[in-house]
């Protein structure tokens, strides 16, 4: 066991490392998106700043920092200032319960690859998601601008609707793992490599599809980006925001994308486990042994980020009534079918 001050110090260190890595990943996801969408549209994307445009995120950051921070006169100031903080805070908060690697790699009994190991990790993520609506809703309302208000109304309605399908799609996974702990859910999928992942061997492909679709809607990404549809709403809920406050919304969106990628990896693609299971014997070197799981985890999250950008470059935006109809009439019933099906299978073949 470790002393309490060692525990506190280790926790602060873990939080710092995870936050720095997450924010760097956010910056480079933006670059990845611009590059990939560029290639999808047959152009190069950013290529001038640094080799292959690799320093572009740095240039963007400096630009956003140095821009004049304008606060329009008509806004309701307390909420106008709080909204980007809520959005970014919620986006960074949910990564705290994500385990990045196996829980048997410890330092004097303290787990190294997750900030907090909770019995109800999955519910915490759902809770933070449901709170994060306020960032967008309040931003639009306090801006005192019709485009902002319309954007945030759309966002709230969309997020409430799709949260239901999102939550229901996870029930099948929880049923299989018989636990709400994320580490436990991964452990169930680690037995036979790719064959025991929830999305293949677990038979949760319907749930996987529903989760991904609903998560795209929750993060307001294409094809569900109606809250910021620039052709109709200029900028949506962040029309009146500039400089770092705008950047905070932007960072929140990408941090949410990464969290969704992490959660989808944990719930459906076996988390940090290798797709080959025990076919490849575990390496003897302790350092390599610790970092192989991280490699698989990052590779799977990268796959989800790539998918996000690919979908954005391919699928056109929904119409509003299509969006609502799709969520309520198809995704929610499909999620219920999945729950009933999974329960039946579990009851017949225990």
């Amino acid at each position, binding site marked *: 066991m470790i002393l309490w001050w060692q525990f506190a110090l280790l926790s602060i260190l873990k939080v710092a490392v995870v936050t720095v890595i997450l924010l760097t990943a956010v910056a480079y996801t933006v670059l990845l998106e611009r590059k990939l969408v560029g290639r999808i549209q047959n152009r190069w994307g950013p290529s001038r700043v640094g080799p292959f445009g690799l320093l572009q995120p740095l240039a963007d950051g400096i630009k956003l920092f140095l821009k004049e921070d304008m606060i329009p006169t008509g806004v309701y100031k307390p909420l106008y200032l709080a909204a980007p903080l809520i959005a970014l805070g919620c986006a960074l908060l949910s990564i705290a319960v994500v385990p990045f690697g196996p829980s048997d790699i410890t330092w004097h009994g303290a787990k190294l690859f997750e900030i907090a190991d909770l019995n109800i990790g999955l519910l915490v993520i759902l809770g933070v998601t449901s*709170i994060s609506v*306020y960032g967008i*809703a309040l931003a639009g309302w306090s801006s005192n601008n019709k485009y902002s*208000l319309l954007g945030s*109304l759309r966002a*709230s309605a969309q997020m409430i609707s799709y949260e239901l399908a999102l939550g229901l799609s996870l029930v099948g996974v929880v049923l299989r793992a018989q636990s709400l702990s994320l580490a436990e859910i991964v452990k169930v999928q680690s037995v036979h490599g790719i064959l025991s992942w929830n999305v293949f061997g677990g038979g949760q492909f319907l749930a996987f599809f529903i989760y991904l679709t609903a998560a795209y809607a929750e993060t307001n990404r294409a094809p569900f980006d109606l809250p910021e549809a620039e052709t109709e709403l200029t900028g949506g809920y962040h029309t009146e925001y500039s400089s770092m406050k705008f950047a905070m919304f932007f960072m929140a969106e990408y941090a949410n994308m990464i969290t969704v990628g992490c959660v989808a990896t944990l719930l459906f693609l076996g988390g940090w486990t290798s797709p080959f299971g025990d076919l490849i014997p575990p390496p003897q070197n302790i350092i390599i042994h610790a970092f192989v799981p991280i490699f698989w985890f990052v590779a799977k999250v990268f796959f989800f980020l790539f998918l996000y950008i690919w979908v954005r470059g391919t699928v056109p935006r929904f119409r509003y009534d299509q969006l609502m109809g799709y969520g309520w009439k198809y995704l929610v019933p499909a999620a219920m079918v999945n729950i009933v099906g999974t329960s039946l299978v579990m009851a017949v073949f225990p």
Partner: protein
Amino acid sequence: MHLALFLIFAAFCLAGAINLLLQTHPINSALSLIVVMSSLAVLYLLLGAEFLAAAQIIVYAGAVMVLFTFVVMLLNVGEEEKTHGSKVAKLIGFPAAVVILGVIATIIIEAQKHLGRVALGDQVTTTQDLSRVLFHELLLPFEVTSVLILIAILGAVALARKEGHS
């Protein structure tokens, strides 16, 4: 540790509740209510009810209050105005609140005798324990409640439908 956290979040809870009453703008009141709900969730957590705490955040602080703020935003409700009704509300409201508080307190104190009690920092009730109670021992009341809610939803839909429109 538990006591300190309890005091902090109980203070948050009360401050939120008082602020809810004092604010004149509906959106500020709604936001104070979110503070109350979230602090309640922390209090549940301190008592070892982790599932209840998560449900409190997801359902109340998340879904229910989002609907409140959504409606406030949709109707663009302005500041509260003083009317004749508010005088009456002040006159009758305080005694009524005291009476309701008294009734609830008596019921809770009465129920403690045969339901048992928890203390701060008690052992955590796991989700499995909770669902075993809910779906084994209390299955019938639980299902009846869900049917009741379904009936309420159907009633609301029937009321909201315009007459002669179909």
